[in-house]
């Protein structure tokens, strides 16, 4: 039996465009041609919506999302020479403890989440507090596709094409006051649709809370995502609205947001409250600072096959050092992990 273990300096097989993506260039072309052809048939033409990515399952797309999709800035940010994780893996290997502790639980259980209608409460140090319907909240904004690395604190990683809006633009809309120094986010609490919140053994104190320093939230890389792989977010990935901060561990990218508060004090976040020695407020991806229980120096880039394990070196700030390092000048990242 041959077990291939690449040296860290080697090019990984995953750096190569996957065969399925390579082959699907024709289906993308073909599908768009088919779209033209079908366009000639007045009724059938409406059903032909070619996906930009291979093997993407269609969901029930909300009307406001369809309206925005046409004007999307595709590939506004991309990763260089890194393969995008297959849709199936990105949607069936998730941590979303509201739907259960196992990686497959969110995909199996999140169907019960009702994402329409959805509203977001904005409060705290803002000029325009209130409860906003999601479609109104994002109405003035243009969708952008951001292809980001996602590094989980558990030492696995993916590359995901998100669709969303710069968080800074969303926050500017609600006019933070001069007292606002942090942003606090809260996930939906609904034990009826979220079986993990019904578990008597869960260590998490619901609802899930995350936070960012205001200048972190204003960094152009930080987004509020509403879609991925050219479609709306699947429920298990945090529908209908989630944060994506690619230079931080995945748990900072809070899902299914119902409340955004601008606050003066650093908010107490869920994992920090649960195990302060393991999870800090900043949670920046940092290969030099280990999680007490495991090393953060390397990561398994998924999919990582049994006979070709795809283990690679973790990059400082997950490879976004140029964009974000200045946020932390003068801060001891060992203490502020």
């Amino acid at each position, binding site marked *: 039996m041959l*077990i291939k273990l690449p040296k860290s300096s080697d090019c990984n097989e995953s750096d190569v465009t996957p065969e399925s993506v390579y082959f699907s260039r024709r289906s993308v072309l073909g599908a768009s041609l088919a779209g033209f052809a079908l366009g000639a048939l007045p009724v059938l033409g409406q059903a032909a919506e070619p996906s930009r990515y291979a093997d993407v399952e269609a969901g029930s797309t909300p009307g406001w999302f369809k309206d925005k999709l046409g004007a999307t800035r595709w590939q506004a940010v991309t990763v260089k020479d890194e393969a995008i994780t297959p849709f199936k893996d990105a949607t069936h290997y998730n941590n979303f403890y509201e739907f259960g*502790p196992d*990686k497959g639980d969110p995909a199996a259980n999140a169907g019960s989440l009702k994402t329409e209608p959805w509203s977001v409460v904005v409060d705290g140090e803002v000029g325009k507090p209130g409860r906003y319907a999601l479609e109104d909240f994002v109405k003035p904004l243009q969708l952008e596709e951001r292809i980001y690395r996602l590094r989980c604190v558990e030492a696995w990683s993916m590359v995901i094409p998100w669709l969303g809006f710069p968080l800074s633009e969303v926050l500017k809309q609600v006019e933070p006051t001069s007292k606002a120094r942090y942003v606090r986010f809260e996930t939906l609490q609904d034990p009826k649709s979220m079986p993990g919140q019904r578990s008597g053994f869960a260590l998490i104190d619901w609802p899930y809370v995350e936070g960012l320093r205001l200048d972190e939230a204003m960094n152009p890389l930080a987004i509020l995502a509403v879609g991925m792989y050219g479609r709306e977010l699947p429920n298990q990935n945090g529908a209908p609205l989630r944060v994506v901060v690619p230079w931080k561990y995945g748990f900072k990218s809070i899902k299914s947001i119902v409340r955004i508060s601008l606050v003066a004090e650093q908010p107490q976040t869920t994992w920090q409250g649960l195990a302060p020695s393991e999870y800090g407020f900043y949670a920046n991806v940092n290969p030099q600072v280990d999680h007490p*229980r495991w090393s953060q120096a390397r990561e398994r880039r998924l999919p990582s096959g*049994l006979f070709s*394990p795809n283990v690679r070196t973790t990059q400082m700030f997950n490879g976004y050092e140029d964009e974000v390092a200045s946020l932390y000048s003068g801060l001891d990242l060992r203490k502020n992990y």
Partner: protein
Amino acid sequence: MRYPWFRLAIFIIGCLFPAWWLYEAAMNLLGPDPGKILVDRLGLGALVFLLVTLGMSPLQRLTGWGGWIVARRQLGLWCFAYIVLHMTAYMVFILGLDWGQLGVELRKRPYIIVGVLAFLGLLALAVTSNRYSQRRLGARWKKLHKLVYVILGLGLLHFLWIVRSDLQEWAIYAGVGALLMVMRVPPVWRRVPRLIGRRA
């Protein structure tokens, strides 16, 4: 050899699980991170074999059937075999055969240290599981093999320290383990009734 079919059935079950998991991994049925899943399943499989092994004496007591005790050694050896596979899979799929990193993990991570201690205990029991050792060690053999309860405790602690957010699964295994341990406390053990069987 007594109860040959029962023994053979246990042997086949012990072989089938890893073979099935390997097949699933090869067929891409385990998702994007099959190595991690194999490590987890092998560890959990070893814990299950350990609990089943410890369940044999109480089962014999409750039912009076001698087959349970006959199967005990083989079940214990399956626990050991799964732990060897568990550690091999950890070395290959999680550490990528980086032996230097293994040294770091062994020094820095309490859950790894506890796991290795449990493995060393199992190794001692596996090495002395033959008739020759039983004869040579005599009364000390029984004492040595009480180590199995320490190993169970270490294994459960190793498992507890990996839990991130939900204790339910761990609590089930720990509950079964605690029950089996409590049953063997002499005053409790004396009161365990014979449910089926001739001698009352």
